Structures are given as structure tokens and as C-alpha cells.
């Protein structure tokens, strides 16, 4: 087990009244798995991601990472161990820095590898995510959305992270590009034993990339299960209504959705 989320709650102050963003969530993330966190807006999925990343502490509960409790103030090594890939890669990359310099910075900050070899490592990282190493000299603006997302993935790889939080990594991409980025993520995980916390609202994506699924509704974890089992027989009504709402394109999917999902 790589991460244990124990009884985590989060309240926010919203102009005088309290908003309960997460209520007593307990969840484990296993080494090498892709755990999908599924829910609609306001479900608490992004709050959970931010707590795991240490952007703010939970109001209650604790996080155990590699057997040790994660402190509210994360050390550099914690930050290296848990990396984020955001929905919009353009806002994740410094527009004035070349792609190569952004990747190099990750290596420099964390002191990864000998200094002399870091530019060569940047080239390798670009090749690992299917980009031409010549891209190192280009600014993010010269890349397409899919290429930028590959750079963001390369940066997480640069840190040799133990856990990668993917927050809607393909929602802003066109469907053909989405397919490629999902495939890349899946191949990297299998080849290198990476661990993903994959946050998404898209159940079609979940079905094809996640081993395990956790469904959130209004700050509560309402259902978890192995992907196959959860899609075959979802037990919570909210999960069934999510499945029932997915727009599908084939007769097979429609038959499946009508059998398993609840229509809205």
C-alpha cells in the first residue's frame, strides 16, 4: 500500500457559513494501480486531490504515505514523491520558459541525477512521452494541447514520483488526442509500475484505464470497487445514475447502459 487516506474531512468557510467539501473519507491506494476518483462538480474529488498533494491540510483525519504520516508542511522529498498533472497543461507550464528548461527545473529543484547529464535526461524524458527531443527548445505556446499534456507527464516522470495525481488530464483534449494520451499513460503505468490517482467525470475513460474506482457524491465516498465488478454490478444508486447518464455511441454500450444504469 502506498497511500492511506484515513477518515479525512475538509470544511471550507464560505462567507460565514461552513461548506463540508469532504466527509470522513477512508481510502487506500495500492502500489502500481490506477485508482479512478469519479464524481460530478461539488463531489469533493478535487478537494481530495489537493489534500493528497498537500496544497491544504485536511480539517480532520490523516494521510499515511509509505507507512509514515504526511505532515501539513510537506518536505521537498514529499513534493517529489507526489506529483500532479493538471487538466490544462498550458497553465501548468511557464509560458516564458522552454519545454526543456521546465523539465530541467524539475531535475534541478530535486537534485535528480548528475548536473552534467541533466540535459540528456530531458531529451530522454521527451522521447519517453513520444515527443521529438528537439521540442526542448520550444515554448509551450508552440505545442498543441496534447503535446503539452505529454510534457506535463514527462515532468511527473522526471521526479520519479511514487504517486501521480492526474486531475482530468484529458478532459480538455480532442477525442483523437485523448485516446493517444490515455494510451501513453496506460503504457507508462504498466511498464514502470507507476501509481495513479486518476480524477475524472468520464466513465468511458474510467472503464478503460482504471483498475479500481471510487465514486464520490457531495463530499462522501459512496462506492468503491474493482473496475470490472463495479461496472458489472454497481451497488449505489448514484453510481447507477452516473452510468445511466453517459452518452454512448454503440448498440452494445446502449444495451449495457440501459441494463446497468438508471435513466435520469
Amino acid at each position, binding site marked *: 500500500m502506498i497511500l492511506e487516506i484515513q477518515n479525512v474531512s475538509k470544511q471550507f468557510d464560505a462567507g460565514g457559513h461552513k461548506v463540508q467539501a469532504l466527509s470522513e473519507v477512508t481510502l487506500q491506494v495500492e502500489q502500481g494501480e490506477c485508482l479512478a476518483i469519479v464524481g460530478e462538480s461539488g463531489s469533493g474529488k478535487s478537494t481530495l486531490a489537493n489534500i493528497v498533494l498537500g496544497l491544504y491540510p485536511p480539517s480532520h483525519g490523516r494521510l499515511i504515505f509509505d507507512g509514515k504520516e504526511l505532515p501539513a508542511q510537506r518536505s521537498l522529498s514529499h513534493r517529489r514523491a507526489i506529483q500532479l498533472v493538471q487538466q490544462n497543461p498550458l497553465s501548468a507550464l511557464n509560458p516564458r520558459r522552454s519545454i526543456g528548461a521546465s523539465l530541467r527545473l524539475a531535475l534541478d529543484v530535486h537534485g535528480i541525477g548528475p548536473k552534467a547529464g541533466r540535459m540528456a535526461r530531458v531529451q530522454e524524458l521527451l522521447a519517453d512521452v513520444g515527443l521529438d527531443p528537439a521540442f526542448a527548445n520550444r515554448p509551450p505556446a508552440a505545442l498543441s494541447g496534447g503535446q503539452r499534456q505529454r510534457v506535463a507527464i514527462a515532468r511527473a516522470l522526471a521526479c520519479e514520483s511514487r504517486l501521480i495525481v492526474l486531475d482530468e488530464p484529458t478532459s480538455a483534449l480532442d477525442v483523437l488526442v485523448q*485516446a493517444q494520451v490515455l494510451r501513453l499513460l496506460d503504457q507508462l503505468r504498466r511498464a514502470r509500475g507507476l501509481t495513479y490517482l486518476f480524477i475524472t467525470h468520464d466513465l468511458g475513460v474510467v472503464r478503460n484505464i482504471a483498475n479500481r474506482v471510487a465514486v464520490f457524491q457531495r463530499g462522501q465516498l459512496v462506492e468503491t470497487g474493482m473496475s470490472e465488478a463495479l461496472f458489472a454490478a454497481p451497488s449505489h444508486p448514484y453510481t447507477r445514475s452516473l452510468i445511466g447518464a453517459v452518452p454512448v455511441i454503440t448498440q452494445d454500450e446502449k444495451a449495457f447502459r440501459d441494463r446497468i444504469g438508471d435513466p435520469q
Partner: protein
Amino acid sequence: MSLLDIQDLRLSFNLWSGPVNVLHGISLRIGKGERVALVGESGSGKSVTARIVLGLLQEMRGAQISGRIGFDGTDLASLAPRDRRDLRGREMSMIFQDPTSSLNPVFRIGRQFHEVLRRGQPSIDAAAAREIAKKVLAEVSIEQPDRVLDNYAFQLSGGMNQRVMIAMALANRPKLLLADEPGTALDVTVQAQTLRLMHQLVSDHGTAVLFISHNLGVVREFADRTYVIYRGRIVESGPTAMVFENPAHAYTRALMAAQPRLTGGGLPEIADRDGAFSDPAFHHGVQA
């Protein structure tokens, strides 16, 4: 006769670096009361097509437009700007992706409704407009129309605002509704409800719809006929069921294959560029 008949529509923008061609001769027809989808990826030209039909892009400097757009038997280019403006909000109306930013944040919904209804009936007073507004809000399953009319857009949820937008767009009983990614900004469960509602309403009123979307699943559920657009060219068209069950063009096939299936099956390897994407268009059956 078609309600909307677009022939060989071309669009280019004059930029400082030279002209950029956006549409390379789009032809598309919508019959009366027909729901037609234009599906494609970002930058394919689907939104600009709707904006040209509405007449918004013509006012933009640097936009070069050619081709013919017939609406209800009239060539839109032959209309005086004033008559053209009169069509908007009456004969044709549009709803956008993000409902909250489409509504004016400083006026209550009721006042905006009055403004919309005045386009159809210039002399209508606030009280009469409110009665009609309540009726059309009830049609989009809004249970407390008075409360909604007294609210500002930011006080309502995204799903509620989208229903308000649909009600406003249909309030003057237009012949054509241009819907640009409606529901994309909404949660899936709310999106499903909203689209079902919209489907019901346009069927009841016999409103034709040009439905613009990148979401294949949504298109399949909403449209009678589908056009697939790729880089400013129509590559495939036909009855929705035919296009989805027997996609003929390489690009359409790639789009379908790339869509992750709810039934699983893994992640196929797909190229996002392919010479075959530029193959001639395929049109299923005889066009209406």
C-alpha cells in the same frame, strides 16, 4: 424545401501574417423541424458555421465569407442589415456552451426575458411578459418560475441557467435553433436531463436545430442527421444511425474508434493525423 440551405460556404480570416482559410466550401441542409448535428473537433469550423448563419461573423472585420445561405427560401445575403437583425431572436436563435456567461449578470432573469419577448412582440409590457415567461419556464421543468425570474444568473446553478437559456431561445417560437455545445459545461447527469428536455421541446414545437458538438454520444442521442466536419470540410453525412453504425470516411472511423467505450475493450492506437482524413466526402443515401 429546406429551412436552412448552406451552399459552398467559405471563410477565411485576414491576419497580419496572411489569410487563414477556415472553411473550404461547406454545404449543409436542414429540413423544417429536423435535428441536424455538426460534429467535429476543436478548430474544425463548426462554431464559426453557426455564427455565420446567425450573421455574427459578417460584422467582423477581416472575415472573408463567400457562398450562399438560404433561410426559409430567402438568400440571407440579399437582406438589409436591419431585416437580418430582425431574424435573430425571432426566426432563429442560439444557445451557447456556458449558460452562466451568456446571461447578463446585472439584470434579473425576468427583465432579460422581457427583453427577449419584446423582439417578438415589441409592445409587450412587463406583466404580460412575465406571464409568458412563467409558462415557457414551466415547459423546461422549472418548478418555481417566480423565484427564477426574480433571481440573477449567478444565483442559479449551471443546469438551471441552461434551462433558462433554452426557454429564452424558444420563447419566440423560432424556426431554427442553433445550439453550440449545449450541456458541455454541465455535469453528465444534468446534461442528460437538459438534452432530453430540449429534444422534447423542439419536437413539440417543430423547431429545426443545428446542433454543434464534439461529443459523439450526445450527437447520437439528439440528432436525426449528422454531418462530420474535419478541418473546414464536411467529410461524411447521413442519417445519424447510418453514420454511427457504418462510418465510411477514415476520419469518422478514427473518431468512433477513439471514443472510450463504456463496455470496455481497452485503448486503441489511433493516429491524430492521417492522409486518409483528406479523402473525398462520403454522403450516406440521398440527402433530404
